[in-house]
């Protein structure tokens, strides 16, 4: 099998003020996706101010000295564009998708709010309530999400990945205008940002537009340095249980600390990607066949390697038990399946299928300008290069059975992990 070559020439520049620019041409439709990524996320929230990165992302829609609240959104809507923003542990991104003739105006608005944000208490207070409602909706009303937060907080005992992106409720309540502005002034700088334009845009012309807009943002000197406490070595297995009267369908999960695409040895992230797919990617995976089809202990089972992180990351397995099957049974069943996988070795045909699937994903992604913009943007925000992105299919293709087994032995097999149990309130104690 040969990996597919990159779709087109992706251009990459760095402007005088330090702003990186990536242009991903795709001329099928006269539309562009315009994104700005900042190399900071929830894991860069100051101690005691959890949720500030995400809260600021909301507040970035509240206007600047030049453009009053709502002017940017009104403009995007008036030209039929889509817009939004999102916050991750390691990055924050803002985007608009518009007809190509509106690219320059979007750039001007976005460049303006890199430095021009104006916040008053009368917009900050209601928006804080909005974030608290967001938290209630996505977490406080959902025992499964509450277990997810508890597992994450247990897996990362020291590193801020253990804190939810949206923040803890009691700390969100205390976030104010000054917190948001302090965070904004620290991180929203050209040196800390990446501009990504995908779609009907030519590289040189796009760079020219960027010079006319983002080029006016003064350099601030060096990019801000992210200082995060490192996670200490793990020695303890931990079980985290959420019991809630709303739960009628229990759930089982296990999380391991594993290296990310930035902290792993060469080849290791790809081996973990393939391992995740072999163990838990779809119905032909080892976990699904053993737990769901053969032993009938679960009604679904999957696993996944989350490699896109700046610091040490996670490998996750998840199963929904069949009626009458205890979560302790799944604890043991998972160990048995993993041991069997290691003893039997990797089925070569299954390995080929996993690699085919992963490599095809890179081709399918080329069908979507916004997917490509997100792929390149997130990779660069994590400090990877264009070349890293474009050579990913070839690196997947190079993964062999030994690399997969080595990764499983090194990172999963009898390694300390956090197991999560979601149970009804009246379930028998473990």
């Amino acid at each position, binding site marked *: 099998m040969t990996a597919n070559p990159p779709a087109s020439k992706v251009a990459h520049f760095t402007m005088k003020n330090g702003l990186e620019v990536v242009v991903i041409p795709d001329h*099928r439709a006269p539309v562009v996706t315009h994104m700005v990524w900042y190399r900071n996320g929830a894991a860069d929230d100051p101690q005691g101010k959890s949720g500030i990165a995400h809260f600021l992302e909301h507040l970035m829609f509240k206007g600047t000295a030049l453009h009053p609240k709502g002017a940017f959104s009104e403009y995007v809507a008036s030209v*039929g564009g889509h817009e939004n923003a999102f916050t991750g542990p390691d990055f924050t991104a803002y985007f608009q998708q518009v007809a190509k003739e509106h690219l320059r105006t979007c750039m001007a608005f976005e460049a303006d709010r890199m430095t021009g944000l104006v916040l008053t208490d009368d917009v900050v207070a209601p928006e804080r*309530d909005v974030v*608290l409602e967001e938290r209630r909706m996505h977490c406080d009303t959902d025992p499964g999400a509450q277990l997810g937060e508890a597992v994450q907080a247990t897996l990362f005992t020291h590193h801020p990945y253990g804190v939810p992106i949206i923040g803890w409720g009691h700390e969100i309540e205390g976030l104010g205008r000054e917190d948001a502005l302090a965070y904004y002034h620290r991180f929203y700088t050209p040196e800390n940002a990446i501009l990504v334009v995908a779609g009907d845009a030519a590289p040189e012309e796009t760079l020219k537009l960027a010079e006319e807009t983002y080029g006016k943002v003064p350099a601030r000197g060096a990019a801000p340095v992210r200082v995060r406490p490192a996670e200490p070595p793990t020695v303890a297995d931990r079980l985290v249980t959420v019991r809630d009267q*709303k739960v009628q369908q229990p759930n089982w999960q296990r999380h391991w600390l594993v290296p990310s695409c930035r902290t792993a040895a060469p080849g290791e992230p790809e081996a973990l990607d393939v391992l995740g797919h072999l163990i838990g990617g779809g119905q*032909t995976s080892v976990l699904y066949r053993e737990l769901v*089809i053969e032993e009938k202990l679960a009604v679904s089972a999957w696993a996944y390697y989350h490699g896109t992180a700046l610091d040490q990351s996670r490998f996750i397995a998840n199963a929904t038990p069949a009626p009458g099957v205890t979560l302790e049974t799944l604890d043991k069943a998972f160990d048995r399946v993993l041991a069997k996988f290691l003893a039997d070795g990797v089925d070569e045909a299954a390995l080929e*299928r*996993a690699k085919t699937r992963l*490599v095809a994903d890179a081709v399918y992604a080329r069908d979507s300008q916004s997917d490509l913009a997100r792929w390149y943007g997130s990779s660069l925000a994590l400090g990877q290069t264009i070349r890293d992105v474009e050579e990913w299919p070839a690196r997947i293709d190079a993964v062999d059975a030994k690399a997969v087994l080595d990764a499983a032995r090194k990172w999963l097999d009898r390694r300390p992990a956090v197991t999560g149990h979601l149970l009804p309130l009246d379930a028998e104690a473990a």
Partner: protein
Amino acid sequence: MLKHPAAPSSQSAVNVRTFVTPRGLTVWLVESYAVPVVSLEFAMRGGAAQDDPAKAGVGMMLASLLDEGAGDLDSQAFQRALDEKAIEISFRNDREHMAGRVRTLAKNLDRAAELLRLALNAPRFDEEPFLRVREHANARLRHDVNDPGSVAARSWRAGAFPGHPYGQPAEGTLETLAAIERADIAAAAARRIARDRLVIAVVGAIDEDGAAALVDKAFADLPARADLAPIPAATFSGLGRTDVVTLDVPQSTIRFGRPGLTRDDPDFIASLVAAHVLGGHGNMTSRLFREVREKRGLAYTVFGAFYALDHGGFFYGGTTTKNERAKESFDVSAAEIRDVAVNGLGEEELEKGKTYLIGSYPLRFDTSAKIASQLAQIQLEGRAPDWLVERNRLIGAVSLADVKRAAARAFGDGALFTTVVGKPEGF
């Protein structure tokens, strides 16, 4: 002054060609070679509305079982065959259709066509996947039992359309799924999978001959006619009523709605424009977004939109707010709805709404899969390919008087049927 008056372009978002295959099937095709990928989307009328109420969920089970073994391939062999070539085939069942989609690398097109043919023409419905798929569906239902959003949607639907298929849960219940046997799945397949109410769209690195071969291989040997039960017109119940479902959570999930216009109503398009300005999905400048979220911080999400089904149209919206302020959130939303019902829209917001709806239309066509999905939907609505231009022309032509008349007809006196899940104060 508006900088961007609504000026619908006469250009189509995509270049669609329609043709009839040698075996007589109509295909909408968009040829594009920039990426070596082919997407196919199809839909057959039928869907959950055809489920026997005592066996609600049978259509969902059918759609879930089509990729679980066909022809000589048992479930595992079929799934491996997909994986070997990274071919994606999936089926789903909504209220009125069973639909499916295929995505494949162009080089694997023949294999994709063969697997789709097998799934549609020779599904096995073996005992093992039948039991497994049902257990999985049961687990989803158990998960949703106390999920506020699921409870609210289920309860609202049942209250708005009692006794009508639209009020039935498409995903079934633990009781109805238990009543379904393998023979029911096979019988549903025999009645519903047919050529006569089928729409197909193909997009990507494929020409007309290739698309014809793909489509004929997969669909041409299906039975000529489906055997569907007639569905009565859906009448709306519960206007003016609020049902509270108590659930021990800190936030109330509110869902509200009322009857809407049908797709063939001359005021339908104008009613869509009114709803977009009122609370369109993703519209960060809508009235509900501004009043409920921005001004008062009452909710993270708030929306309202018209849904046109084949046997009735309705307005459906909602928001989620902490229990203490749930009533305020509902009252603010209901007041905005009443205002649009009585006063229609202002000139500037109408123009902005129209410009957005016209200008954003091309964004629905930015990937092969989305283009195929849009083209299938347009066919299901009974439109011709010129709808790609006509839609925007009609929106551009909506006047203040049109929108006022349409809003008055669609929103009436603004009365709503409402479901609130949580521990809301003030209801």
